[in-house]
């Protein structure tokens, strides 16, 4: 019973951390002369106040969940993937290229192919740092970050060049693609912006859970993450599994990019930054995964919570007219609090484990004596 309560508290930790961050945010709102109750009221209303708000929250959660699933795989095998942004971009570029190349092909063929293409492009972009790590022991934190920069510049090049929409009026040419044929739009579930991608993401979350905990490959990935040396001793090809996990991690981010293009934006445009396309989902997905304690199923509610925060915070800015920088700060606070609480949670788990061990030892010595 006590264990159950303990793990429940552990599970709710990120939620407490979010509330604490919002409390700090309330002070900031007060200092800016805005009423925190009005602000947070608007936040809740913006995230959950209407069917449309629910849909927007789910739409925002979708890329977070997909990226987060990849993060679960990577972090479980002990490698860190910060390249979600670049992998999303490569997935998006690959998938939109297909759709733009065959505008009159039937959607039933193009859409699944485009999603697969996005998955593969992301896998390649994530696999490269994986290969570099396995072969040359290149730090994957650095290489994935650098791959982000390359992806952004590649996107800028394509959107200014071969992919640019030629039919633009006015003197200023905007670096954007044409809109994809409406036949390629991911089906809407209800008359809101809610698209099929969210179902796909949730389905994949269960699949990833099955993969990590119910298959041999998944078992080996987790084993490598728990103890690389013991795994090697047990005959697991450690490098191979690290490459695989980074590859899969990239693949899910790539799919997130493709889903974003076919489900939400239907075209691509660049303002020169990665965040201009991804909305920082490549990074926020990491937070969502940590929120969900690196468990694919835990990542589902975590993504929704974080998606709600992002959608609601924009509404809060409109309602209170505070500077947009506060919203960025508020989201940053949530990240800092959640990540710190994760460390604290781990300490608690360790302390409990040690206490348990001591109890066992005491018992053992008692029975001996």
């Amino acid at each position, binding site marked *: 019973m006590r264990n159950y309560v303990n793990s429940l508290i552990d599970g709710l930790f990120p939620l407490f951390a979010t509330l604490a961050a919002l409390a700090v945010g309330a002070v900031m709102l007060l200092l800016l002369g805005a009423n925190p109750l009005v602000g947070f009221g608007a936040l809740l209303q913006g995230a959950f106040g209407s069917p449309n708000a629910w849909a927007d929250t789910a739409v925002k959660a979708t890329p977070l969940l997909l990226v987060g699933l990849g993060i679960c795989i990577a972090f479980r095998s002990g490698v860190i993937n910060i390249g979600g942004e670049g992998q999303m971009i490569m997935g998006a570029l690959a998938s939109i290229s297909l759709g733009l190349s065959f505008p009159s092909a039937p959607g039933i063929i193009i859409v699944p192919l485009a999603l697969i293409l996005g998955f593969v492009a992301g896998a390649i972009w994530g696999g490269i740092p994986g290969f570099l790590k396995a072969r040359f022991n290149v730090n994957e934190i650095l290489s994935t970050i650098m791959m982000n920069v390359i992806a952004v510049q590649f996107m800028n090049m394509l959107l*200014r060049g071969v992919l640019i929409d030629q039919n633009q009026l006015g*003197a200023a040419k905007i670096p954007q693609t044409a809109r994809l044929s409406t036949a390629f739009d991911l089906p809407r579930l209800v008359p809101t912006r809610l698209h099929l991608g969210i179902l796909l993401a949730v389905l994949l979350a269960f699949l990833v859970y099955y993969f990590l905990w119910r298959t041999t490959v998944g078992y080996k990935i987790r084993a490598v993450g728990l103890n690389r040396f013991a795994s090697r001793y047990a005959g697991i090809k450690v490098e191979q599994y690290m490459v695989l996990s980074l590859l899969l991690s990239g693949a899910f981010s790539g799919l997130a990019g493709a889903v974003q293009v076919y489900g939400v934006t239907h075209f691509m445009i660049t*303002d*020169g*930054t990665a965040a201009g396309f991804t909305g920082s989902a490549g990074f926020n997905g990491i937070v969502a995964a940590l929120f969900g304690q690196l468990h694919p199923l835990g990542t589902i509610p975590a993504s929704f919570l974080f998606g709600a925060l992002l959608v609601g915070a924009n509404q809060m800015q409109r309602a209170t007219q505070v500077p947009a920088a506060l919203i960025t700060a508020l989201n940053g606070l949530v990240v800092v609090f959640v990540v710190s609480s994760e460390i604290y949670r781990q300490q608690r788990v360790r302390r409990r484990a040690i206490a348990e061990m001591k109890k066992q030892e005491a018992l053992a010595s008692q029975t001996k004596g």
Partner: protein
Amino acid sequence: MKKFTYLLLAVLFASFLAACGGASSNTTSSGTYKVAVVMPSAINDLAFSQSMYDALMKIQAERGADKFEVAVSDGVFVVEDAAAAIRDYASKGYNLIIAHGSQYGASLKEIAPDFPNTTFAWGTAGDTFGLPNVFAYEALSQEGGYVNGVMAAALSTSGTIGVVGPIEVGDAKLYVDGFKAGAMAQNPAIQINVNYIGSFSDVALASEAAQTHAAAGADVMTGSAQMVVGAIGVAEQQGILWFGTQSDQSSLAPKIVVASQVYDWTVVINDILDLMSKGTLGGKVYAVSLANQGLLIKFNPDYSLPAEVKTLAENTIKGIQDGSIKVEVGQ
């Protein structure tokens, strides 16, 4: 645990109150405007977003805050967030919604037909999508670029000029191309190094680019978009002259900013308001220029510009206004 339950209840209650408050009526009496603007960067970026914010504040000062209500969503560079904001403002009954960024066009095209009684404006762009409730506005920034270029070439003693651009598109490209044309017209032998850094927001990269220009011997620099503050910092340190665009950048570095081309959108907004009061909700494309006073060259009062260069600049402005000087860029 109980405390959290109370907190949760309090928050839920607050959201209920907010929901009630949202249902107020949105009818407006004639001559009263509720204006919302969505912008990609901060309202105090001393560049693109600020140019629109300043214009709205100027109009508000003229008409009074009760007749001209302004709501701002700034720093919205993610297109789908902007789309949500535009839709939200429209459903809250704002009369005029300005999507101040060329990246918002595709969203506007989908949203505007759902709100036929609301006026939308967007720019910089030249396309109203054939919709009766969409205005578009753009800036012929090559004109001010040309004037700045003429002055820059006249002031440069090293014969090398550095340009820090964002991405080679839009009004930034027009400005840079105009600047080059002006400088070449003044001094055909001048060396102009252009560096597009690939970002509208990377301040650190802009200062790196400026360092490179300085190392290459540039004694005059210019640049476009909101990341130029980084370049202006470098210029100030090294005593390199700076020409601004979009907003008046004199306050950033009073010693080295010579002049700025300022986008003054008040002419556009006032005309839109005028048309709206007559029942026309859209369909017109605006281009601010030196001739229609939507583009202004603001000289920095703290910089002592040689009289002959100032005369040269004024003559160039006149020439562009009356058409005797043609800036053949972006045609």
